[in-house]
């Protein structure tokens, strides 16, 4: 019997589960092929979700109807809002999750979702046919869709037919793990690599590259003396990632993490392993992430730094393993052990799983477009680490978008592309496609030029309408959102246009050491004082009978939005102006077959990149690295004739 699904998803990591779930919710049948049915949604590296900028991604995934936020909420064992000493745009939620529970919860959601069938196996080959209406330009380097995907073939020769394939293979394609001089094929410890698929895709004409990432040792909890480390606690009032308010949150017992530091002795011992290091001896060819360097990288690049932070994070609630955050390494196992034991609290530590580096195939992103579909094979999508990103959140965001877009294409609908001015997800995908990847890509808030607008606190207001239109957000959620949005609008309107009499407010101003007023003052002007808190202002007696204000006081989220909108209006206006400039350039479209070869003034680098990436607008072209403003001017002059 021949199997058929609308969509086959290869890999059941964070990208794969989002892709499968979204596609199934949107009404397609999904075959989710994984090498190990017990590894669905596994946290391969750190046992945490969110963090700076990544927390924004999780909130956006949730607003669009994805599942990462819900899983994190149900399995989190420490919740913390980062950067609360700074402005609201860089607040970022983060949680430690029990990694076993996380994986179980992901598997449960996938199994319960109608339309998804989980298939154990390794995909070896794609079934393809020639694309029917080829668009060939006289410029031989440019062709769109040479083939159409029609199914997959597994290692065992099993054929599965489908209309669309989403590859979310993580670090598994031709993966090699390195520790010291030893290297073994495999994507994670005790898990084999996936071979065949890269070769198959290369034979179709895809380019592949190598990237590298690493993970630190896991420590035996009972051999650690936590009393000499600094306790890192979570927030006293944990906040959910998900907009779906869940009774009983937080579901898990909340625990602490610990901070300790390396020292010069640690560094000396680590140096003794350098001659065996796969990094320094050149055995690893792949490029690793600069923001998450191995400990050996840190001590060689910043040799004047006497110590580095090490966070000790529990991997599970009940288990006996601790994640040694900050100590990613591929040095020989005995060096890892010896060096770790010089660190306060770890004098007697046992390493239960050594740190290692893993090298894997990725597909340089000029081969896909903003929908994550490949330019060569119609119906084929890639998402996650295969596109050169790192991190669960980045992977999940892409998985969700690939899932959505593959369904939209099957249904003959317009693709769903988020702009840089709308979402971190838009920034992430545009960065991938437009700037390309030469090291694993990680989301930072500084990547988002419209950061003040793209806050984690307004992800629902920005994106939930899209989730609803796509069929991923339930009606009751959108009704709640609408109510909240109305309350915000009315609240802002009221506070902008109404004054308060000095006799009602001076007592409060005195209390918070703010200068008193001598006559009626606009509420918005008081709210803009940094020491004034909106909540305290609204709680003044004079508003006791004001229904609008009483409603605002009952809705913390709305109140927060109102306060931000009024307090930071000047900056938000400036940012809106930047966005209107941005949109202008996005709207100047470049024809898909534009002949870059005709403009001789383009630098060779710019020409090559423009031809490879084929930006669809001047705005996108401007963001391509190596394309200088003079190149853009030349293209614009040429377009105008």
């Amino acid at each position: 019997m021949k199997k058929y699904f609308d969509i086959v998803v290869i890999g059941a990591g964070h990208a794969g589960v989002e892709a499968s779930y979204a596609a199934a919710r949107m009404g397609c049948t999904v075959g989710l092929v994984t090498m190990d049915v017990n590894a669905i949604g596994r946290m391969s590296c750190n046992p945490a979700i969110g963090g700076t900028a990544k927390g924004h991604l999780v909130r956006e995934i949730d607003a669009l109807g994805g599942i990462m936020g819900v899983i994190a909420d149900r399995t989190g064992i420490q919740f913390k809002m980062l950067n609360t000493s700074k402005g609201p745009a860089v607040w970022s939620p983060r949680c430690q999750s029990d990694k076993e529970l996380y994986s179980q919860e992901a598997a449960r959601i996938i199994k319960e979702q109608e339309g998804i069938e989980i298939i154990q196996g390794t995909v070896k080959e794609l079934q393809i046919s020639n694309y029917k209406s080829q668009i060939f330009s006289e410029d031989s380097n440019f062709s769109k869709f040479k083939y159409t995907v029609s199914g997959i073939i597994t290692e065992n020769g099993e054929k599965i037919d489908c209309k669309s394939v989403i590859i979310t293979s993580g670090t598994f394609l031709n993966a090699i793990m390195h520790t010291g001089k030893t290297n073994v094929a495999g994507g994670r410890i005790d898990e084999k690599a996936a071979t065949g698929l890269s070769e198959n895709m290369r034979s179709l004409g895809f380019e592949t590259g190598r990237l590298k990432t690493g993970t630190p040792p896991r420590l035996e909890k009972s051999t650690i003396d936590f009393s000499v480390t600094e306790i890192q606690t979570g927030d006293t009032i944990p906040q959910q990632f998900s907009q779906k308010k869940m009774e009983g949150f937080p579901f898990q017992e909340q625990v602490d993490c610990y901070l300790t530091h390396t020292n010069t002795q640690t560094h000396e011992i680590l140096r003794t392993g350098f001659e065996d290091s796969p990094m320094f001896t050149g055995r690893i060819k792949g490029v690793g992430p600069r923001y998450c360097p191995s400990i050996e990288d840190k001590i060689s690049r910043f040799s004047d730094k006497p110590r580095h932070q090490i966070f000790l994070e529990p991997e599970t609630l009940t288990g006996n393993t601790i994640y040694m955050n900050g100590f990613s390494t591929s040095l020989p196992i005995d060096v890892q052990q010896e060096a770790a034991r010089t660190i306060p609290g770890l004098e007697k530590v046992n390493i239960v799983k050594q740190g290692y580096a893993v090298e894997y195939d990725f597909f340089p992103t000029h081969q896909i477009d903003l929908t994550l579909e490949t330019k060569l094979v119609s119906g084929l999508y890639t998402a996650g680490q295969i596109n050169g990103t790192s991190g669960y959140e980045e992977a999940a965001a892409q998985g969700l978008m690939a899932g959505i877009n593959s369904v939209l294409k099957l249904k003959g609908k317009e693709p769903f592309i988020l702009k840089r001015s709308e979402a971190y997800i838009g920034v992430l995908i545009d960065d991938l496609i437009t700037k390309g990847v030469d090291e694993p890509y990680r989301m930072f808030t500084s990547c988002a030029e419209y950061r003040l607008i793209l806050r984690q606190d307004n992800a629902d207001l920005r994106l939930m309408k899209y989730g609803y239109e796509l069929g991923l957000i339930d009606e009751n959620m959108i009704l709640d959102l609408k109510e909240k949005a109305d309350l915000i609008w009315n609240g802002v309107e009221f506070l902008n246009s109404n004054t308060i009499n000095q006799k009602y407010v001076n007592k409060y101003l005195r209390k918070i050491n703010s200068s008193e007023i001598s006559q009626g003052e606009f509420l918005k002007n008081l709210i803009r004082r940094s020491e004034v808190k909106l909540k305290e202002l609204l709680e003044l007696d004079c508003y006791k009978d004001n229904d609008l204000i009483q409603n605002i006081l009952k809705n913390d989220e709305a109140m927060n939005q109102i306060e931000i909108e009024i307090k930071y209006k000047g900056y938000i206006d400036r940012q809106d102006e930047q966005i209107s400039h941005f949109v202008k350039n996005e709207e100047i479209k470049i024809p898909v077959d534009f002949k870059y070869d005709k403009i001789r003034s383009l630098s060779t680098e710019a020409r090559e990149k423009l031809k490879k990436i084929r930006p669809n607008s001047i705005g996108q072209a401007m963001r391509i690295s190596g394309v200088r403003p003079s190149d853009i001017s030349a293209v614009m002059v040429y377009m105008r004739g």
Partner: protein
Amino acid sequence: MKLSDTIGAISTPIGEGGISVIRLSGENSFELIQKIFFKEKDQSRRIVISEEASHTVHFGYIFEGSQLIDEVLITIFKNPHSYTGEDVIEISSHGGTYITQKILSVLLNNKVRHAEPGEFTKRAFINGKMDLSQAEAVADLIRSKTDSAHSSSIKQLEGSLSEFVYKTRQDIINIVSLVELELDFAEEGLEFVKKEEILDMINSLNERLRNIIASYITGKVIREGVNLVIAGKPNSGKSSLFNYLLKTNRAIVSSIAGTTRDYIEESIIINGVLFNLIDTAGLRQSLDEIESEGIKRSHKKIKEADLIIYLVDSSDSQEEIKKETEHFREDYNKENTILVFSKTDLSKVNLTEDGIRISLLEDKTIEELKKEMISKVTSGKLSLSSEDIILTNLRHRICLENVVTSLDEAANTIKDSMSGEFISVDLRNALNHLGEITGEVTNDDILNNIFRNFCIGK
């Protein structure tokens, strides 16, 4: 496609002249010239440009059919070694409107398209021969009227503005990186720079920018000349001095007060500096309607002037001279004004006031005035001696002013104790404005800078 066709135009100014140059540029310019250019007067020998070296000059004749038009020299520039980067032919013909127009029309009949204004430079830009600010400098160069204007444009061509912009950009990127570091890497246990230090960095950067912007006044003087107004009460000798300086009789001179009813402009060059002389109606209350209008315009011109010569008639009574001098001291700012006592040959009083004394009967006294004019221009605000970059382009000035505004906003944001992401909005605005001159900045620049300088990674 429009940009690969062959264009032609007369490149020297229209009018009588010894020779004129007609320039051809484009894919077919060699082929086209071969059709109409002959080595011999009897059309017996043609030139084969592919066999000739680039940058060589050839003597010969231009024909229309069998009719000889002119004896010319043609210069061959093979691509990419030409002004436009394309195949270029320059025909040096005899001057005069008729001949050059005739040659051009022969070319136009042979499928050459008449070039639009600036099209040669546009092609040079598209073919990578110059960047945008260099192309702008070419436009300035063509319009420049004096030697110093020429050298300033050349300097800009060589990229000193681009260099300055690049350096400033690096400085701002450094500041942004420091701000971003604290936002994205707060968990890394790094030491962050104090806000006061960032404020200092911004302020010193802004000071430098303000200096460059101030140079625009100089730049404008270089390119457009010093607007020099000759002012003074009626019949103080303004038009006489004006005419003397011009050595023409352009303005009407008479001894009846109020003859110059409007202002008159002429340009002269003294020691390489261009002065636009503006003669104004005498400054006094007048009942004459036309004259009143003239006086109104005079006041406007005086307000806009870069330099003012204020004339006091020394043939007047002591009392009147004193009154006029005091009037001058009250109303004019010393920095850009020269007080001049005129008609000293007719003076009957003992002049004690400071000021230049002139008599149109003595060249020497005028030389002294000219010296003072130059010294006013070359010192202080109108300084030409500065070795820094001189801004000559209004667009560049506006961009830099926007940079300064954004940096000021950033400084205010810091003073208001706002968090880094707000400071970053202003700093990135500054970068965007700077990018409008020559280069864009991407987020990558900022992150690269962070990773280069700080130890990141838990």
